[in-house]
């Protein structure tokens, strides 16, 4: 702000005359605290009005001095010289506070004190808020961590239970005396591959378990064949959504001398693609 322009604007004189608006007064009170020139200009304007009052003074009727003194005494506003200094003020202030002239300080006094105090509270409140936010964040993260751990544990448990179920299924197949287990071994160029066919001799149901087979490429599916009298007969495709360890139920086979698996296009074929033969095993 241009202080010289502010001083010459007439706002200070308006303020001293009691003409300034509330907004102008609050701005002025803010500036005067930080600017000696403005403070000085205010004092100058005040002195001018004081000088005016001096020059226009009028003689008070002599009797009034005693009248006023008597009234102060009657209102118990006097401190006798032998008494402590502090006595009468509190009562005096509350007593007549209503008739304060507008320019008295008591209107602005609280405004001046409150900000300093409320800054203190604001800072304390902010610190508490930050602390609280920090603690919340800490607990929130702890909780998130716990949740994640719990989820992981649950998932691990689930998968173990699933695996167990699969193993139990297979175990029950193996235990079943009617079931014949036929191991299928990798062909010449894929010696590591390995699968198991569980064939229920009573119900003719066939279950396939891919013990050691690579995951199928996209668009492909393993297809099981039963060799019946030298001819391959489809026993169905291994479901894409089935778990590797799972023994999946295939088509029933009444009679077969051997089983084989080829990698076929998704959905399977009527005749096996012999170049895609993976494993086979005879009974």
């Amino acid at each position, binding site marked *: 702000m241009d202080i010289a322009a502010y001083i*010459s*604007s*007439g*706002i200070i*004189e*308006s303020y*001293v*005359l*009691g*003409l300034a*608006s509330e907004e102008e007064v609050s701005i002025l009170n803010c500036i005067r*605290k930080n600017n000696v020139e403005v403070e000085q200009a*205010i*004092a*100058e*304007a*005040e*002195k*001018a*009005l*004081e*000088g*005016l*009052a*001096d*020059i*226009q*003074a*009028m*003689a*008070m009727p002599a009797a*009034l*001095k005693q*009248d*006023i*003194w008597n*009234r*102060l005494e009657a*209102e118990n*506003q*006097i*401190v*006798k*010289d032998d008494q402590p*200094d502090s006595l009468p*003020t509190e009562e*005096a*202030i509350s007593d*007549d506070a209503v*008739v*304060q*002239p*507008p*320019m*008295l*300080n*008591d209107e*602005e*006094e609280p405004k*001046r004190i409150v900000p300093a105090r409320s800054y203190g509270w604001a800072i304390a409140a902010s610190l508490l808020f930050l602390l609280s936010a920090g603690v919340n964040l800490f607990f929130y993260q702890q909780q998130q961590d716990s949740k994640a751990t719990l989820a992981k544990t649950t998932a691990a448990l689930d998968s173990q239970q699933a695996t167990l179920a699969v193993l139990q299924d297979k175990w029950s197949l193996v235990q079943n005396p009617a079931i014949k287990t036929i191991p299928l071994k990798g062909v010449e160029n894929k010696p590591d591959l390995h699968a198991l066919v569980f064939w229920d001799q009573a119900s003719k149901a066939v279950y396939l378990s891919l013990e050691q087979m690579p995951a199928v490429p996209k668009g492909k599916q393993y297809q099981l064949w039963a060799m019946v009298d030298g001819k391959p007969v489809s026993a169905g495709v291994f479901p894409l959504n089935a778990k590797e360890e799972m023994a999946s139920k295939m088509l029933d086979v009444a009679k077969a001398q051997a089983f084989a698996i080829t990698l076929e296009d998704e959905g399977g074929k009527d005749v096996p693609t012999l170049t895609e033969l993976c494993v086979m095993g005879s009974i």
Partner: protein
Amino acid sequence: MSPLHNLPEETLILLLKKKNQQAFSYLYDNYADALYGVVCRIVASTEHAEEVIQDVFVKIWKHVDLFDAEKGRLYTWMINIARNTALDYRKSKGVVNEMKNQPLSNIVNTEEEQDQSQSEQHTKADFIGFRNILDKLKPECRILIEMAYYEGYTQQEIAEQLDVPLGTVKTRTKAAFLQLKQLLKDYR
């Protein structure tokens, strides 16, 4: 008749806060006439002025503890108590100031007429030896100080009454103070 003011303000404040007879005597002897002058110009009769000035002293006496030296000068503070008490009194008594009843043409007039109207006012107001330094200000400045200081008009009201923009009220206020300061210098 001028107050003596030979005590620095800080000393006077300390003295007043003692609230003893010495403090009262000092306050009265040095400021009563000046404050009475302010009151007399606002309530236009000695009878009312004597009533008001007593209230003024009681208020100063009771509220001196609320005075804040950072907010202004003690003398100015006391003058404002006198002004406001007198303006409130006038309002409460329904004493409408002469100027507010006068048509505007009577307020804004030639200097010659002004002197006449001023002397009439003096007679009416029953104040003999009523020195008015304001008469020596330029008319537009005198009116402004009288309306604001002695009549309690707001800035807005002054602008409307004188039919000038608010900004002009401020610049005239500034001009009035400059003239007043010069006049005071000449008096001393």
